C-alpha cells in the first residue's frame, strides 16, 4: 500500500453523525456552558482553604509519582542487552531510507528509545549523503538505538560521543576519555555495552 492508496482509504472513512438534535442544541448548550463558566470564575476568584491545601500537597505528590515512574522505567529496561538483532537493523535501515527521502541532506540521526523514535535534523540541507551507521548503546538500565553517520555527535546520558567510520567500515565511537572500535573484542565502553555496524555492510 502506498501513500496515495492509504489516503484514499482514509478519506473514504466517514464520521458518524452525533445523536439526533445535537446540532440544533449545540449553540444553546455552548451559551449555557459559557454562562456557567463565567459564574464559576466569579465564585472562585479567591481560592478557598482546601485549594491552598491541595496546592501544598501537589508538589510532594508529583515528586512521588515521578520517582515511581522512574523506578518503573529503569526496572523494566534493566534486562535489555546490547546485542542488536538483525530485525532491529533491518527496521533501522528501512526507516533511514524512508526518512532520508523525506528530508534530503537534513538528517543527522534517528534515535530510538523508550519514548519512540525521534529525528535529529539540521536546519540547513547541508548534510553530505554518506552511508548510515547503526549504533546501539545500553547502560544496564536502558538501551538507545541510533541511525546516524560518520562525523555526527550523539548524546547519551549527558555524555557526547563522536561517531566515525573508516574505509573498511569499522565504526569508531569517541567519548570524552574513551574510544571504542567495532572491530575490537570489547563490547563495553565505560558504562555502556555497545554494538555498531555500517548499514551499508550489514
Amino acid at each position, binding site marked *: *500500500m502506498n*501513500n496515495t492508496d*492509504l*489516503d484514499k*482509504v*482514509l*478519506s*473514504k*472513512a*466517514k*464520521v*458518524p453523525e*452525533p*445523536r439526533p438534535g*445535537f*446540532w440544533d442544541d*449545540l*449553540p444553546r*448548550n*455552548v451559551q449555557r*456552558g*459559557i454562562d456557567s*463558566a463565567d459564574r464559576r470564575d466569579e465564585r472562585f476568584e479567591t481560592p478557598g482553604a482546601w485549594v491552598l491545601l491541595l496546592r501544598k500537597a501537589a508538589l510532594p505528590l508529583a515528586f512521588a509519582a515521578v520517582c515511581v515512574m522512574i523506578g518503573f522505567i529503569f526496572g523494566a529496561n534493566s534486562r535489555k542487552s546490547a546485542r542488536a538483532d538483525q530485525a532491529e537493523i533491518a527496521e533501522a535501515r528501512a526507516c533511514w531510507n*524512508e*526518512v532520508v527521502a*523525506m*528530508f534530503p541532506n*537534513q538528517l543527522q540521526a534517528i534515535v530510538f528509545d523508550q519514548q*519512540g*523514535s525521534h*529525528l535529529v*535534523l539540521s536546519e540547513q540541507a547541508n548534510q553530505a549523503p554518506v552511508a548510515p551507521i547503526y549504533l546501539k548503546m545500553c547502560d544496564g538500565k536502558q538501551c538507545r538505538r541510533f541511525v546516524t553517520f560518520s562525523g555526527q555527535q550523539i548524546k547519551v546520558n549527558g555524555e557526547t560521543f563522536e561517531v566515525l567510520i573508516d574505509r573498511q567500515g569499522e565504526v569508531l565511537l569517541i567519548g570524552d576519555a574513551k574510544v571504542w572500535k567495532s572491530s575490537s573484542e570489547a563490547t563495553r565502553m565505560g558504562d555502556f555495552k555497545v554494538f555498531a555496524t555500517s548499514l551499508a555492510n550489514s
Partner: protein
Amino acid sequence: MELTVNEDFIREHQRMIYSLCYRMTGSVADAEDLTQETFIAAHQQIESFRGQARVSSWLYRIGINRCLNWQKKQKRQRELHQEWGERRELEGGASDSARVQEALMRLAPEERAAVALVIFEGQKHGEAAAALGCAETTVSWRLFQARRKLKKLLSKGETP
C-alpha cells in the same frame, strides 16, 4: 476583525470541529462533549485570536488542544478498543470506516492529530504545525510514522 462566538459562528464551524474531535477520540459521545468544550474555550480565549490568522486555524488549535488534553486525562483507551471490538463483532465484521477509526486509535495522540489535521481536514503541514504548536518538520515526521503504522494496520487481510 471582531470575532464573536455566537450561533452563526458555531453553526459555521460545528461540523469541522466535531469531525476533528471524533477522529481524535473515536467516540461520538466524547466528540460531542469536546465540540461543545471547544466553542466554550474559543469564547474564553477570544482575545488570543489575531485578525491575520484564519479563524478555522485558530479554532483547530483550540480544538486539537482540548482533544490532546482529553487524551492525557483519558484512562479508558483499553475499554474503548474493547468497545470497538465488541461493536465490530455485533456488526458481523467492521465497516471500512470503523476499521480506519480503530487503526487511528492505535496511533500516538500526536500522530493522530497530524493525520486528522493534514489528511482529514486538508491542512498544509505548516498550518497543522501552527495548530499543534510544533515545527513543520515535526508534523512531517509524525505523519510519516503514522502512515507507516496505518499501512501495516490497514493492509489487505489484516485486522487493525
